[in-house]
């Protein structure tokens, strides 16, 4: 049985939605258990006092990346069948900037605002309302911003494809960068703990 299961027809539309719900529940559960439902903990990373978010997210990235790589290598998963969000340089650069500003102002990212809301946090609820309002506003102004929204298209491209390197090399590089990042983050946390 090869994956992705949806692409190979092992599961249909309905089953894939059930998978999505289960995965979403698990994601929210572990985010909350990791303490990422707290605006204080989330915004502390921007002051370099507590980089748990950085460490958690990067750990998840390298775990999934290694899993996908080895499953693909053994032929259990066709990695080139996995959907990739297309890359559009300029809107994603600006969007990331806006996202970062919103994150530090609101204290939550979209996912963690839902996590916080689920625990009854009022500021989480306000973040979710702001998020939905922003989505609605985007939908209304889209006809005017569409040229910018599709600026700098690179297609569905991976880092390995962009750099022209074998995937295994990129995997090694990213793991190395992640571990170095963890080491640096611990140093920064000690330095700015009481800042």
């Amino acid at each position, binding site marked *: 049985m*090869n994956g992705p299961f*949806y*692409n*190979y*027809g092992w599961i*249909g*539309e309905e089953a894939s939605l059930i998978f999505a719900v289960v995965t979403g529940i698990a994601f929210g559960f572990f985010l909350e258990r990791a303490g990422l439902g707290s605006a204080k903990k989330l915004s502390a990373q921007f002051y370099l006092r507590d980089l748990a978010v950085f460490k958690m997210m990067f750990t998840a990235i*390298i775990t999934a990346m*290694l899993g996908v*790589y*080895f499953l*693909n*290598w*053994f*032929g259990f998963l*066709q990695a*080139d*069948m996995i959907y990739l969000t297309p890359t559009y340089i300029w809107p994603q650069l600006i969007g990331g900037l806006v996202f970062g500003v919103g994150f530090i102002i609101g204290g939550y990212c979209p996912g963690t605002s839902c996590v916080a809301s689920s625990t009854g946090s009022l500021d989480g609820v306000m973040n979710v309302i702001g998020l939905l309002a922003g989505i609605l506003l985007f939908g209304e102004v889209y006809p005017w911003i569409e040229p910018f929204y599709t600026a700098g298209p690179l297609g*569905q491209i991976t880092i390995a494809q962009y750099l022209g390197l*074998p*995937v*295994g*090399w990129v*995997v*090694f590089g990213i*793991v*190395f960068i*992640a*571990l170095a990042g*963890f*080491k640096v983050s*611990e140093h920064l946390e000690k330095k700015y703990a009481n800042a």
Partner: protein
Amino acid sequence: MKLRLVIIALSLAGIALLLALLAPNGWNNVNQSPRFIDVVSLAGKIKNREKLQIIDLRTEEEYSEFHIPSAINIPLEEWGQSSPQNNQTLIFYSGDDWLARQLWNSLTDSLKEKSFILYGGVHDWYDKLLYPTLPLNAKEEDLELSEKVHELCKFYGGFAEFVDDSLLMNYYQMNLKEAGWPEPDRVVGLVRKGC
């Protein structure tokens, strides 16, 4: 940062690096791209009555509705029971190459040496050869190929549409030796009619 986890992560990353160097196409070359043939080349070979065995891997119903001229129908699940025993070159196709991809992974090395996969399957035969959209004022370097496609289109009973878009010839000039499996066009449900 726990040393044991660092060692595990670096070890896995190191193994990924080694695998990328020693076996870039995966376990038993499972991820090696197949030998593709484009619709224009295949159309030319059929027209010239070259000795080929074209095999449609879809169901009998889909084959009856439409198939490539001179193709025989061996549904994927029946492959092995009724596979051709002659030494002719084999050309496999399905809808969007889904079934062809599954078949390719199961072929022996000796069979792969005399086999090709029709890039884009019957859908590309239909959209790119039988009813192609060609550039109205093709560039000089594209003119010969554009006229060849148009001639083959008329030979097989189709008709071409002409629009003012010089990028339309990019598909016909793709280097299939470097191509990966084509992305299926999900119009309705999992794939377009026939996988």
